[in-house]
């Protein structure tokens, strides 16, 4: 099978571009073909040359053909809120671009100034898929956005909060600085420390020792500031954190090193301590970067504001103006096109159509609407064009209120005390007790000076660094490897919560079923004069009824012949009829009739996902209690449950979003799997919310995990991943506690010295590092 030139996906129905008798192709769809033409016409065909030479790292979706005008981007209101002035006093806006995947995209986006009038600069950040575009006085952002759309990158304007963005950059840079300085200092200290261990002559001893102190000072103050700060905050809130014993070791080490230097004793622990600060900062930095690559609520914020809408003049419906959904006001008249999500609670003024309410209520059936009916924000207009009059806009709508609840519930999730901090509680107590015992014991047998020295040394060498490094490292590995598999986990606490989960709640629509009506059965009793496909296709050609839609979808594959239909009729609520080749055909009551004789019948259902049953079994094997929560009608849910072999008590139907949330909230250690706006509250109220692919972007704001693949199959895998990860973490915990016990033993027998610390501490870190990389057998299999 060949690949589409533009998007590299497999081509099923090939489209070709022909010109001067030569054919270019294949393309997977008309969209990609159009984009190819636009790019060539602009003289930018080098794009494809560059693309050939890059290794793909993101698969690109085929381009969808849509025509948006983006004129709302030029509104003064909009510009005031979304654009800012750059250093050259030019208007600048950031766009999130869909479909950024390789260096060729980078090339073409940064070429914008050469083919769009008025663009003065364009820069792309590939990691975030965000382009920053500046325009001169002559330029318009609507032109920029249209052009971006034309070449296949759908732009979404981003609202940039300059102050939070600056703050974030500042924080990240200061973290990097701390890592860099700690690394440089640790390396330099090593030079002098090794000379000292190797037995530098007495004339150099003091000089070298002073040098190590000099290098250690910035590390123990500036670079270690984050540890002191979190320890202080933890103590202030009367909680515990792994940073407390670390900060304690650092302070003790610093005090002892300087005290020794003043007393001309060339002994300190700065070589071990600085190296550990460096490693700790490094592992935390990586964990943070990986988490930020995943779900960042600020970045997702723009999504749900959605597509632009057409505002029409109340007196003349033919006059349209494109506006951003944010600026919809009450009493506005809007034109809603087929397949558009209704942006506000409104009443229909004119037009007839079917609504898909599943996003709001979970019902799989379609609702017929006509003039004077009420429609809710978040539902999808399936077939006809509508003119609606807005009654409630943005946060006042039913959907807006649900979202507000999600946001309010956001911070209220029960925070678990993670495993390392739990350990640190016992750890601090044990180390302090042991130090005191050691102090008094040595005091009785030796002098005051030796006793103090030994006790301090114990506090320093029991620094739980292996533990503090190992845990983030294990999570980094799990988070990044899962992300490669298309499972995006919000943070490390989620992994731990998942491993402890006992109940799993699953939404029906879109998770177990495909949320798409399909013809699942077609019984043909007699052959018709013309092919059955042709009858269906030609009769239903102009019908917008949902059953007609899925019948058409069903026969489309066989490329039915277009025929002339005489006396074509559609009787609302009954069916369609017409005469083809002298025979009278009818499609009604899920049957196809030729001259009033039943020729075939069919059955329509929201089909199960093929992987649903196997995934449910796998989840049950993991020891989870399964329950399906649905807003759909009882008989629909019952049918699905029967097919999946579920018990009476394993499903509940006809639940409102609010009720679902209540059920979930009352069960601790629960997971919720779902998509759609009706699940947003449910996802947020569960211990862990998993949003599966195809989920409305809103769900993502409430969920902890986002899956890039449809259906349930990855959930079972995620459960395995979380359990195995926790296994590795527990093993690391045991390992590092073993090393600490060795340190304590050495301290008690009086064998501890800076040299032993310089050996034991790195070795312990190295052991947990190796243990992390090895993982477990199951994990190794999964990561392959």
């Amino acid at each position, binding site marked *: 099978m060949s690949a589409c030139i533009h998007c590299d996906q497999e081509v099923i129905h090939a489209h070709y571009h022909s010109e001067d008798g030569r054919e270019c192709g294949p393309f997977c769809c008309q969209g990609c073909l159009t984009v190819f033409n636009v790019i060539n016409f602009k*003289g930018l*065909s080098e794009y*494809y040359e560059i693309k050939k030479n890059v290794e793909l790292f993101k698969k690109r979706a085929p381009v969808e053909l849509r025509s948006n005008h983006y004129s709302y981007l030029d509104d003064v209101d909009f510009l005031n809120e979304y654009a800012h002035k750059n250093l050259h006093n030019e208007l600048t806006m950031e766009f999130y671009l869909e479909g950024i995947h390789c*260096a060729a995209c980078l090339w073409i986006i940064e070429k914008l100034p*050469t083919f769009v009038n008025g663009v003065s600069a364009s820069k792309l*950040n590939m990691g975030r898929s965000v382009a920053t575009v500046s325009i001169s006085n002559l330029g318009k952002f609507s032109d920029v956005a249209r052009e971006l759309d034309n070449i296949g990158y759908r732009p979404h304007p981003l609202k940039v909060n300059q102050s939070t963005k600056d703050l974030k950059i500042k924080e990240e840079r200061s973290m990097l600085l701390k890592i860099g300085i700690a690394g440089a200092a640790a390396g330099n200290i090593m030079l002098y420390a090794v000379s000292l261990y190797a037995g530098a002559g007495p004339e150099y001893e003091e000089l070298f020792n002073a040098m190590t102190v000099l290098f250690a000072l910035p590390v123990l103050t500036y670079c270690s500031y984050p540890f002191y700060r979190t320890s202080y905050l933890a103590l202030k809130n009367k909680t515990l954190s792994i940073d407390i014993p670390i900060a304690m070791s650092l302070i003790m080490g610093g005090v002892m090193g300087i005290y020794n230097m003043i007393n001309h004793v060339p002994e300190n622990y700065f070589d071990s301590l600085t190296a550990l600060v460096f490693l700790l900062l490094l592992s935390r930095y990586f964990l943070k970067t990986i988490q930020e690559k995943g779900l960042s609520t600020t970045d997702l914020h723009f999504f749900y504001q959605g597509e632009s809408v057409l505002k029409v003049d109340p007196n003349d419906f033919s006059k349209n103006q494109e506006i951003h959904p944010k600026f919809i006001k009450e009493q506005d008249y809007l034109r809603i096109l087929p397949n558009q999500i209704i942006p506000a609670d409104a009443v229909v003024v004119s037009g007839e159509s079917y609504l898909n309410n599943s996003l709001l209520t979970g019902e799989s059936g379609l609702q017929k609407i006509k003039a004077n009916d009420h429609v809710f924000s978040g539902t999808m207009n399936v077939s006809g064009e509508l003119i609606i009059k807005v009654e409630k806009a943005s946060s006042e709508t039913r959907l807006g209120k649900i979202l507000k609840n999600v946001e309010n519930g956001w911070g209220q999730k029960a925070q678990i005390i993670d495993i390392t901090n739990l350990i640190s509680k016992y750890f601090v107590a044990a180390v302090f007790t042991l130090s005191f015992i050691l102090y008094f014991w040595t005091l009785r047998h030796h002098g005051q000076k030796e006793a103090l020295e030994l006790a301090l040394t114990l506090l320093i060498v029991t620094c739980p660094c292996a533990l503090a490094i190992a845990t983030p490292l294990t999570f980094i590995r799990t988070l990044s490897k899962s992300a490669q598999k298309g499972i995006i986990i919000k943070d490390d606490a989620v992994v731990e919560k998942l491993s402890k989960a006992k109940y799993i709640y699953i939404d029906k629509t879109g998770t177990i079923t495909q949320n798409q009506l399909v013809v699942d059965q077609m019984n043909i009793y007699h052959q018709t004069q013309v092919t059955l496909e042709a009858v269906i296709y030609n009769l239903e050609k102009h019908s917008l009824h949902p059953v007609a839609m899925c019948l058409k979808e069903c026969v489309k594959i066989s490329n039915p012949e277009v025929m002339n239909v005489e006396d074509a009729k559609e009787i609302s609520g009954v069916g369609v009829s017409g005469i083809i080749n002298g025979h009278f055909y009818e499609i009604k009551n899920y049957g196809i009739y030729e001259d009033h004789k039943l020729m075939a019948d069919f059955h329509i259902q929201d089909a199960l996902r093929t992987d649903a049953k196997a995934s449910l079994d796998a989840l049950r094997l993991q020891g989870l209690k399964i329950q399906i929560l649905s807003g759909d009608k009882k008989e629909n849910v019952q049918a699905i449950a029967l097919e999946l072999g579920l018990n009476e008590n394993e499903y509940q139907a006809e639940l409102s979003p609010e009720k679902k949330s209540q059920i979930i909230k009352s069960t601790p250690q629960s997971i919720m799997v779902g998509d759609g706006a009706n699940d947003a509250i449910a996802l947020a109220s569960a211990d862990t919310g998993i949003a599966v692919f195809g989920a409305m972007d809103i769900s993502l704001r409430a969920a902890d995990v986002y899956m890039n693949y449809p259906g349930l199959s990855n959930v079972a895998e995620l459960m395995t991943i979380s359990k195995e990860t926790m296994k590795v973490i527990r093993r690391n915990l045991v390992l590092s506690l073993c090393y600490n016990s060795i340190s304590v033993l050495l301290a008690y027998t009086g064998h501890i010295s800076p040299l032993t610390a310089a050996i034991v501490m790195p070795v312990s870190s190295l052991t947990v590092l190796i243990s992390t990389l090895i993982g477990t057998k199951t994990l190794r299999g999964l990561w392959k």
Partner: protein
Amino acid sequence: MEIIVFLIPLALILGAFFVGCFIWMTKKGQYDDLETPGHRMLLDEHNKVINNNTHKGEL
């Protein structure tokens, strides 16, 4: 071993120089985006791209 009098300050100066460079680079924002510039430098500038609408790609 008097050479050490020379070597230690030298090591310090060199070290300080590189740490200084690192601080300067970080403050200038060279580490803010580690992915894009790497790709950007690989793209050659070709003059043929600019303006001519008649140029059609051959594939």
